[in-house]
């Protein structure tokens, strides 16, 4: 379905700014604190970037899992390794009242954000009860609709795991 989009990206370096409902997006999971002992996603895996309402993801339908992994590996440090990907359907994410928007500027082509409408507070500031309830509700909904793929070969540069599919 996204063959033409992938060709356009490879040949012309072009990608539509519009994120289609049919696309899949992935969130790279780095922190051991974002998966539990049973290798399931925790709510914190979908905490927004500080002082924003944005949860960074990649447009995997167009980038493909190899590029997603390559981009994710660039974010690694000696103390922070890629653990896997949380895969979401854009349509399902939007059906939960979240926005999914392209956010290549300042990032990279293929970067997108899930926007929740609830801005994270400044550094070290605890949320109000209502904000905390909303945050956890958002995260719980995202965890519910996401499928987590632990990376079976985290040190390899290419994705060698299963084909990335959404839930359902």
């Amino acid at each position, binding site marked *: 379905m996204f063959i033409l989009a992938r060709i356009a990206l490879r040949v012309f370096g072009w990608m539509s700014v519009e994120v289609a409902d049919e696309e899949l997006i992935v969130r*790279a999971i*780095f*922190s051991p*604190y*974002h998966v539990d002992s049973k290798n399931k996603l*925790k*709510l*914190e895996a979908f*905490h*927004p*970037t*500080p*002082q924003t309402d944005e*949860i*960074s993801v990649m447009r995997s339908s167009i980038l493909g899992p190899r590029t997603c992994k390559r981009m*994710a590996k660039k*974010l*690694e*440090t000696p*103390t*922070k390794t890629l653990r896997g990907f949380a895969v979401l359907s854009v349509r399902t994410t939007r059906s939960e009242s979240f926005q999914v928007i392209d956010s290549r500027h300042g990032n990279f082509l293929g970067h997108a954000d899930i926007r929740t409408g609830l801005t*994270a*507070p*400044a*550094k*070290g*500031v*605890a*949320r*109000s*009860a*209502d*904000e*905390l*309830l909303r945050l*956890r*509700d958002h995260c719980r909904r995202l965890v519910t609709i996401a499928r987590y793929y632990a990376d079976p070969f985290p040190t390899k540069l290419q994705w060698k795991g299963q084909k990335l599919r959404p839930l359902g």
Partner: protein
Amino acid sequence: MNRNGLIYQPLQLQSAYYSTVLPSLFVGDVATINIAAVSSSMRNESLKRIEGFQSLRDNWDGYGAYAPSGAVCNHATLLINQLALDFPDVPSPDISPSSNGTVIFSWETGLGEAVLEIGEANFGGYIGKPGSFAPLSGNVNSLSKQELSVIAGYLG
């Protein structure tokens, strides 16, 4: 009522209680607290986890998250000690760093959840179950036995 079926019903807390109950737990040194009689397994497991947070650096999640500061970790440590000391039957919370440099304690039961977010200067949280929602908030130095007893009561 929100989508979880929780009704927003403020909990009445007596602020006069805050500065009088166990204030030393929040201004003194961790090492000075008598923890001889506390629930050691819960405490040790939780403290080990918080100790791990202290080695985090900014951007620990790959998305620009702030690392919890020493002050936040100290407050979280003190909270664990206070829970273990006064409420040894309370089950271990799930403790996680948040992207904004705070630490979140949560207890989930079949009926709902209790959540506490510890910041550098303030705390926020709630106890939510069907039919009731009790918000918690205030200065982290005044987080008292009163709030914790509400949580313990819910978990009990």
